[in-house]
Every structure is written in structure tokens, then in C-alpha cells.
């Protein structure tokens, strides 16, 4: 049985109008998210991954606009929803966790109150009951002794615990989809590992769907069921975690994976991707990655590659997969580290 996806983005394009012209932040993105699935969106800064996440919650600044496409949440087309309607969706349907917990939390208000705020807003419960739910939430995210800690302000907590509190707030209204935008980037590795395990645990317990936005491929490998790689506002490769990590097909994914020190053997130099991501003010007509791509074909500079299907779940946008293109093998160095 094919289940209706909980979130669908269809041909989504988002632009920002700036004094210097139009910036095309997201270009023609198609994504879908199943119930209980964790989809990771990876890419470098400026590739549009955060804009994509915020566009679903309509958290983008005023100078942005949805140029084209549709956002469908649980069968409902929310593309043209105004602020008033969005408020009812944020919480019960959609929730978000940001990178820096200290800017998310209000430093002067006790944690408990910040959690009950969203519960009281969306549910018809008494204060007492809301407090009970808040304690449950804190327990769920692994904070010991929540009955006592509920009355403490954020500065009593460590970075990892603050992020747990933010998660508790995000989960308190029982959302269907959680957007996590680099939720572990500001944390230490040991704390990061705990938060990732917590997210997996919560997914197993509640069946929530998670869109996990990150630039760290190691983190993504631990948490994601499916991975979408973004470059210059476009999804260039998407597939299950195994497909993207063990059988990457786009040269940009090759570049990202081989730039990692853990994929470099001793005595070798790190392989970097030459050049820099393009400015999205005036994107090139062809494949935006062509100028940095050592395998670029002539057509890459002229025409945007379509999505080629590799398996029922694995798609990638590169002309290398066209039948007329010369055969290009995965770089040898990367092959070696994949096969280990």
C-alpha cells in the first residue's frame, strides 16, 4: 500500500527580492516525506536548505516569495496560507528546532512556563494539566528530575540540556512534522551523539516525521533514512542513506564525501572542491556546479540536467547519467573508502 506522504513539496521555487536584484534561493525542488521518516537535507551554507525548511513554516522574511510550486502538508495545500491560518498549523502540525538553543529560549522565563505556553495555546487544558504534560515532555527528552527543574531559567542548563528543552517545547504540541535546522551544530560531539539518539528514540516512540537539516555528513549518516543533497538551491541527489553514501552518483556528492578527513587515507592530501558556491543573484543557465566540476560536460554549461532515476528511490541531476555522456567512474579514492 502506498501511503500518502505527510509533506510534499512540488516544483517549489523561492526568491528573495533584494536591492541588487532577485536572489533565487530555492529552485524547482520536489520532495516528499513519509510518516515516521527522517529525511536529511545536506549542503553547504547558502545552498538553500534552511530557506527550504523555513518556507514550509512560513517563517521567511517579507522580501521572500514563493515563485512557483506547492507545499502540501498532510493532504492540505498550504502554499497560500496567511499568517492567521499558519498559526494554527505551527504546533499541532509543524514544529521547528533551531541551531542555537540560547536564542530560541527566553532567558528570563522558567523552562516550564516556556513549554506550557505552547500547550495552553493549542489545547484546551488547565494550567495544572499543562504543567503535568510539560514534566512528561522534559522526562521524554531525558532531563532528570523535571519536577524540580521546571522552575529554573535557561542559564541553569548546559548547552545540551537547553537543546533538550527546546526539543521539549517543539514536541509539546504533538506535531506531525519536526524541522530540525542544524540542531546539534553548536554542541560538543558527545552531547551531539546523545541528542541524535534522543531524536531517533522519539521518532520510534511517537512516529513523528523529521526533516533534519545539516551540513555534517557524519551526523546525517547516523540519523537519516533518506538524504537529499542540495546545491545552489536545487536538489542534486536524493536517495536512501545507503544509496547516497554507498553509491553516490552526482559529482558534487562525490566532492562532499571525499572532502571528509575520514575518507582520506594516511599520507594523502585532503581533496577539496575547488572554487566556491555560486552567488544566487544570477545563477548560470546550466548546471550551477559545472564550474567546480572536473567531470563537467559541454552541455552542463548550457542546459540544466533533469533528474535521472537510478532506482525507485534514488534520483540525481547530472548529465553524466545521460546515455550520450561518456562513462565516468566514481573517483577511485572515494570508491576505496566506500568499500571499506
Amino acid at each position, binding site marked *: 500500500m502506498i501511503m500518502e506522504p505527510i509533506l510534499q513539496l512540488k516544483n517549489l521555487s523561492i526568491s528573495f527580492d533584494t536591492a541588487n536584484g532577485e536572489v533565487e534561493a530555492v529552485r524547482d525542488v520536489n520532495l516528499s516525506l513519509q510518516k515516521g521518516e527522517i529525511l536529511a537535507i545536506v549542503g553547504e551554507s547558502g545552498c538553500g536548505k534552511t530557506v527550504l525548511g523555513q518556507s514550509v513554516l512560513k517563517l521567511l522574511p517579507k522580501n521572500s516569495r514563493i515563485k512557483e510550486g506547492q507545499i502540501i502538508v498532510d493532504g492540505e495545500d498550504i502554499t497560500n496560507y496567511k499568517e492567521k491560518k499558519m498559526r494554527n498549523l505551527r504546533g499541532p502540525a509543524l514544529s521547528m528546532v533551531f541551531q542555537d538553543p540560547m536564542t530560541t529560549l527566553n532567558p528570563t522565563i522558567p523552562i516550564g512556563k516556556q513549554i506550557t505556553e505552547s500547550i495552553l495555546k493549542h489545547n484546551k487544558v488547565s494550567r495544572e494539566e499543562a504543567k503535568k504534560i510539560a514534566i512528561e515532555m522534559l522526562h521524554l527528552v531525558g532531563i532528570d528530575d523535571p519536577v524540580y527543574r521546571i522552575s529554573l531559567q535557561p542559564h541553569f542548563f548546559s*548547552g545540551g540540556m537547553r537543546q533538550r528543552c527546546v526539543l521539549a517545547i517543539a514536541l509539546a504540541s504533538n506535531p506531525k512534522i519536526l524541522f530540525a535546522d542544524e540542531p546539534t551544530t553548536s554542541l560538543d560531539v558527545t552531547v551531539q551523539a546523545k541528542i541524535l539518539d534522543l531524536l531517533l528514540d522519539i521518532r520510534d516512540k511517537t512516529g513523528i516525521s523529521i526533516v533534519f537539516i545539516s551540513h555534517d555528513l557524519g551526523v546525517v549518516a547516523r540519523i537519516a533514512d533518506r538524504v537529499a543533497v542540495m546545491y545552489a538551491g536545487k536538489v542534486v541527489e536524493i536517495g536512501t542513506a545507503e544509496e547516497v*553514501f554507498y553509491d553516490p552518483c552526482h559529482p558534487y556528492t562525490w566532492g*562532499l*564525501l571525499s*572532502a571528509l578527513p*575520514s575518507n582520506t587515507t*594516511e599520507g594523502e592530501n585532503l*581533496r*577539496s572542491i575547488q572554487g566556491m558556491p555560486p552567488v544566487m543573484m544570477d545563477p548560470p543557465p546550466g548546471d550551477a556546479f559545472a564550474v567546480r566540476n572536473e567531470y563537467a560536460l559541454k552541455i552542463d554549461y548550457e542546459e540544466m540536467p533533469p533528474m535521472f532515476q537510478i532506482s525507485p528511490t534514488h534520483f540525481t541531476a547530472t548529465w553524466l547519467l545521460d546515455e550520450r555522456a561518456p562513462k565516468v567512474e566514481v573517483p577511485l579514492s572515494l570508491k576505496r573508502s566506500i568499500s571499506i
Partner: protein
Amino acid sequence: MNSDSILEVRHLKQYFHVNKHLTIKAIDDVSFQIDKGEIFGLVGETGSGKSTTARTIMGIYPPADGEVYFKGQLISDKKIYHKNKKEIQRKMQFIFQDSAAALNPRMTVEKIIAEPLIINHIINEKEELKKKIDSLLVEVGLDTSYKSKYPSELSGGQRQRVAIARSIGMSPDLIIGDEPIASLDISIQAQIVTLFQKLQKKHGFTFLFIAHDLSIIRFISDKVGVMLKGKMMEMAPAKELFENPLHPYTKALLSAVPVPDPIYERNKKILTYDEESIQADGQMVEVTPGHFVYK
């Protein structure tokens, strides 16, 4: 003392007095030594004291106790430091994490790189200065058209290259990099790390590289020190430390590093270490030659 040693830190302590009742022991008896031409990686989590160590070495604040030797001179001594201040400041260069804050936003790239060269009277002649700036820019992989740009016009990676060019211009003996690549993208990180390696080979400077990213440390360092709560937990040649970690904290830290391999990651068990179990009066013990563990 070893004659090859560029930097030696002995029993360094740094305390911050918050108020009458609370004193934070940011560095608590740390000793290590870096030989000429070596890249020493210092890792630790937030608040472990790695940045404070770098800042104390640099002389931003005087140490509470202990000694810092730079090229055989006791620079933690105020008198000796002030006598040789110019020389020390020139030969010991710093690269910070936030390149935007490290570069003056009102100066062009050319002026930024020229400033220390002029102040230190390394180059007094205009034409020569121009040539030097051009060659420094080329060395860090920027072309000379960047000279007239302001820091705000550059990307993070480019700004870090300018900061590196400014440091290299002093022909330093020691460069201290405090998380110099932490705020850059993966593909740019690789570019900057490769640049560091290339420059290090060419100029032979010694490098104290501070980071929280273990995979980068493993890649770039000759020797690695692991810090926790102001103490050095383990110190060994990089290969030895990563292949044969002995301290439970190092083991926990290594197990937490995410690896880009989904099947491996999903089945990985992450070790934990109870930070309360550190002994207060432990010492570094040499277990095998060059491999020290806090016990």
C-alpha cells in the same frame, strides 16, 4: 630542555575568580612541549580550557602559575616578556576562528596585510612592500585583484586566507590557530587545511592547532593532546592516540565522532565517560614512549 623545542609549557595554571566564593580553574596543571616544525593538535570540548591555554601562551593574561618557554625564553615572566615583546609578538602569530572579527572592516586587504610589515619595520620600501603583498596573496591562493577589497566583500574562506597571509608575512616560528576552520563549510575546510599543510611544509613553522573536530585533528597533527576540565587527559603521537586510545575519556570522545557510513553509524555503540570520576590529584604517566595518560 630539548634544544629543538619551540614551545614548552610546564605546569601551567590559570584561574578566574568569578566572585568571593567561586574560582574557575580554567587550566589546571597542564604541561606539554612542541618541537620545531611539529603540528600539535589540542582537542577538547567546550569549556575544557583549550582556548585559555592558547591565550595564556600568547600573553593575553598572565598565568596563575607555571611556566611558558618560547624558543628557550621564559616568556611567562613579565620582565623577560616585555624585554623581548616585539620579537615574541612577531614570531608567534595567531589565527582566530572568527575571521570577520579578526580583520579590520575599514581596511582593504592590501592594508591589512601591509600593517604588521610596516609596524615591525620588516619592509620599509614601497615597491618592495607591494611585491611582498602580491607574493603573500598568491601563496594563500588569492589573486592580486583582491588587494583593493574590503573584508565584507570576501567569503569566510577568503577572509581566513587573508588572515593567514598576514601571519605568514611575519615569517613566524609558531602559529597558534584557535579553531581556524570551525566556521567554514566542509569543502572550504578541506581547502584551508590543505593550504596550512602546504605552507607548513614550505616555511617550516611550528603549529599549535586547536579544534574540537577530531577527524581534522587526526588528519593534520603530528602529536595530539586531549583536554578535559582544564586538565590534559592524554597526549600521544596522532596515529598512536587514534589507534590506541588509553584514557576512557578519549575513548568516549572518539566513539562519539560521527562517521559518514550509515550502516556503521546505526549499529555503533557510543561510550560514555563520567566526568566526575576524574581524579583531582592525578598525574601524567608515560605509558609507552611518547604516550602520556592522566592517572
